[in-house]
């Protein structure tokens, strides 16, 4: 094969590789964190602000890059003998005014809707549905002051309702972000911030802590589940129930024994099992009263996938219980040295906590 041919072959492979990569990238992908896919009025308002600015930027981009490219192509030194030197132009006051004024006017045009949106979206409206969010290294705690419910990792809200999250942090800065529903907002220790959420449709919305919050920042994720008002009312009822203790001798009962003896109760609260005051717990950990009702755990990182089976869920839970710090480095839940039997029993118990 001559060098020229091999070069051509190489090019073909390169092109093929690049094309397939592009195809893979552009193919139908589910993007659960897509900020350009608004699923509620607040996110839609922001989206409506983004696109006009984007298109203006695209126009400016093509004008400026076009002018740059045109200048390079038209005025390239063609190395012709006797080519005249360019005219020595030092500037033009009119042009300076023009290209100062035009961007100013464009920006002024953009500023008006921006400022009105800032004020419209800033504060929670009165009478909004209230939720408290507390950030912890590395999970979100949610409580409903009107219903006396405390949960974690999965925030359940009613659809078509203005939800006002009152947020603070227990340790470092965190940033709560559900891209489909709104922009993000900090959780600041010693201070309170507000974030509005509003979902049009029932569904599961993904989120992520957006501010670097230490070792396992990447594993601090969030999930919001929006339910119709009737489903939501049902959920509230369920959450308010105190679970029945399992019958003696069942696998669930074995799990409860492990839960009480392996040290879980030092941090986790489980209604009907322990009711410690906040000072008594070593570290504030997720309230597990209705663990089985939550689609995700371990900072909303497990189980992965959009519709995990019960087997996948239990496998994920087993891996988490076996060695939390390897899944979430820095984790405040230590490796408790649980045996396989203990883990099985705990899973049976936790999964019974609907």
């Amino acid at each position, binding site marked *: 094969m001559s060098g020229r041919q091999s070069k051509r072959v190489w090019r073909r492979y390169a092109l093929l590789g690049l094309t397939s990569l592009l195809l893979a990238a552009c193919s139908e*992908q*589910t*993007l*659960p*964190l*897509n*900020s*350009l896919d608004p699923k509620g009025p607040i996110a839609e308002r922001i989206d409506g*602000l*983004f696109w006009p*600015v984007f298109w203006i*930027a695209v126009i*400016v*981009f093509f004008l400026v890059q076009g*002018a*740059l490219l045109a*200048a*390079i192509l038209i*005025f390239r030194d063609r190395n012709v003998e006797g080519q*005249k030197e*360019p005219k*020595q*132009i*030092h*500037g*033009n006051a009119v042009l300076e005014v023009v290209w*100062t004024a035009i*961007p100013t006017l464009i*920006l002024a045009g*953009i*500023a008006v809707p*921006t400022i009105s*949106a*800032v004020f419209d979206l*800033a504060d929670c409206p009165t009478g909004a549905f209230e939720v408290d969010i507390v950030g912890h290294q590395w999970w979100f705690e949610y409580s409903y002051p009107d219903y006396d419910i405390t949960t974690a990792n999965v925030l359940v809200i009613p659809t078509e309702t203005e939800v006002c999250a009152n947020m603070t942090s227990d*340790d*470092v800065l965190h940033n709560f*972000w559900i891209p489909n529903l709104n*922009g993000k*907002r*900090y959780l*600041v*220790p*010693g*201070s309170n911030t507000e974030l509005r959420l509003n979902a049009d449709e029932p569904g599961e919305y993904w989120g*992520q802590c*957006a501010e*670097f919050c*230490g*070792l396992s*920042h*990447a594993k601090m994720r969030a999930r919001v589940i929006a339910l119709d008002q009737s489903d939501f009312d049902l959920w509230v009822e369920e959450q308010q129930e105190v679970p029945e203790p399992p019958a003696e001798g069942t696998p669930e009962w074995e799990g409860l024994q492990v839960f009480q003896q392996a040290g879980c109760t030092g941090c986790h609260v489980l209604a009907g099992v322990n009711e410690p005051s906040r000072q008594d717990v070593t*570290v504030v950990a997720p309230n597990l009263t209705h663990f089985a009702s939550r689609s995700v755990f371990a900072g909303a990182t497990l189980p*992965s996938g959009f519709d995990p089976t019960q087997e996948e869920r239990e496998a994920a839970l087993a891996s988490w219980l076996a*060695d*939390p*710090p390897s899944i979430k*480095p*820095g984790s405040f839940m*230590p490796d408790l040295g649980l045996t396989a039997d203990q883990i099985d029993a705990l899973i049976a118990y936790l999964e019974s906590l609907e």
Partner: protein
Amino acid sequence: MATIAPQKIATVFRRPEATTGFWSWITTVDHKKIAVMYGYTAFGFFIVGGIEALLLRIQLAGPDGTFLTAAQYNGLFTTHAVTMIFLFVMPMASAFFNYLLPLMLGARDVAFPRMNAVSYWIFLFGGIFIYSSLFFATNPAPLGGNLPGGALDASPLGSIPNGGWFLYAPNSGTQFSPGTSIDYAALGLQILGIASLISAVNFIVTIFNMRTKGMRLLRMPVFVWMTLIVAFLLLFSLPIIAIALFMLTADRQFGSVFFVASSGGDPILWQNLFWLFGHPEVYILILPAMGMVSEVLPVFSRKPLFGYPAIVFAGGAIAFLGFGVWAHHMFSSDIPTVAQAAFGLSTMTIAIPTGIKIFNWIATIWGGRIRLKTPMLFSLGFVALFVIGGLSGVTHAIVPSDWQQTDTYYIVAHFHYVLFGGAVFGLFSGLYYWFPKLTGRMYNERLGQVHFGLMFLGTNLTFGPMHWLGLQGMVRRTWVYSADTGLGPWNMVVSIGAFIIALSIFVFMVNWTWSKRKGEIAPNDPWDARTLEWTIPSPTPEYNFGVEPTVTALDDFWHQKYDEDDEGRAVRRPEADELVDRLIEANGNPTTEIHLPAPSYFPIIAGFGMMLLAYGIIYHTRPWGIPLIVVGILMLISSLLGWGGEPLEEVHEEHLDGQGDSDHDPGSLDPNQESTPRELAGVED
């Protein structure tokens, strides 16, 4: 200490005499040698920061990467930023300032040559100090947390500072970062800040006092103007971060609670202080590159810079406005709505002077005779890529949009277009443009163009997809992302792009190393340039100008070579070639003895003392901590005193009566001139 008379100290050591070899570099106060040391050190750190970036990109090439641990990843993204900002772009710009400022102004050196040396050594030891964390620092889990496998401390690579270059409180406090790695970052940045502050003062004094005859302020090259603006930015912004870092160090070392929320401290105060410094810092990084581009575009278009005063004033406006936009880094933070609106508006205004610059640059090349040599390619690349970074920057001013985009890869894309596509392309443009000046040889044009092509492709492949990755929800500073997010494919593209950039840098290194030794000998005035540094031989002689130049116009050198015809077209004067040769001949062969500032051992000792002091502060509870502080302070003070007692210029045997000249301004040591301080704004024409 006070009993030791400074004069006495100067005689304790033998005066440094080496003019070549190792000791000549250690003791040099020559702005050109210092510039070369700045340049090579900065480039070394660029390679380190680049390798860190590649490691990060290997980790992120696919979802749920296992190449790095969380501690290693967090450390690497922190040091990547610290390295690229404080140890590469700033000192590399400083290399250019050092080398070019006296040459462009027609001076023999900077105003304070030894301060110049001390700022280099402090910078070097600051960089070494930060990276010594790799061996000495500790990084345990937050109090009460557990590391994988029950480890007490993160693995070796995980012991570098890992709180982000922004060191946000309270995560940077002792409760959440109990190891010493954050102290290395905080004190290291403090040291680097001192180095920058010293050189800022030096550059300001140099520009105001050392201009040659006729060099009015508005006849200075734009690069000098941008240097002046950057120096003022440093002067006003560095004290802010210095105070913030002192507060952080006090919190960590001495139990104060400025930022400790649980004791009533305010973490948002840190953010305000940090970004009040941090945003001007962005312009500190980009303005030098803008200055270089403003030199390169006219030369390779064979036209004067379009709207010189507009570009100068736009630079000043950017710097001024830069102090009023810091809160746009905090739009999702705990700041009031009115402040969000106000800072949104102020951020938009930045686009106006930036736009003025871009339009004037395009007008500069428009109608020119564009020679697409490597420096020009990089400058044009700068303009093209900077436009993208500028446009995405405007979207940050759309506050509600920023609520979505902040802390995502959209921001990473934006500032890499500005700082890599902008600042770094500008720096490479400068490196190629002034290569003949530095070495007396030409670089390899073909390799230069290959470098540009690869780097331009790599930059867009790396940072382009980050825009949509961010919009699709990829959050910054996460060491893994789930496959479910659908972010995998584009991350692979980004990682491939990063390696293409690395390849392009390799091509540059080959070109540089080869051309420095074997490149064609550079002709006099290789680019048909416009500024004073091309009126002297290449490489620059130690004394810069054999004859002190007098300028009568902006781009004086060009006007000596070119006349304009009736149409306004440039016409080369028939005597131009001869004039250039004669100028360079005269500048290379001074007829009178030229006194140069004397070399000194003390700057390196001062820099080393500063580093010992920092170690002492970190380990002040250990038995050897306080002694280390004392030794560091003693070294610092005694070297400053010793330096104060040194002669300003070397007194040679045959020239003993020259002692009376010691009130000479070291930069204007031309014996032809009575050393009259030059008028500030160039009274004479």
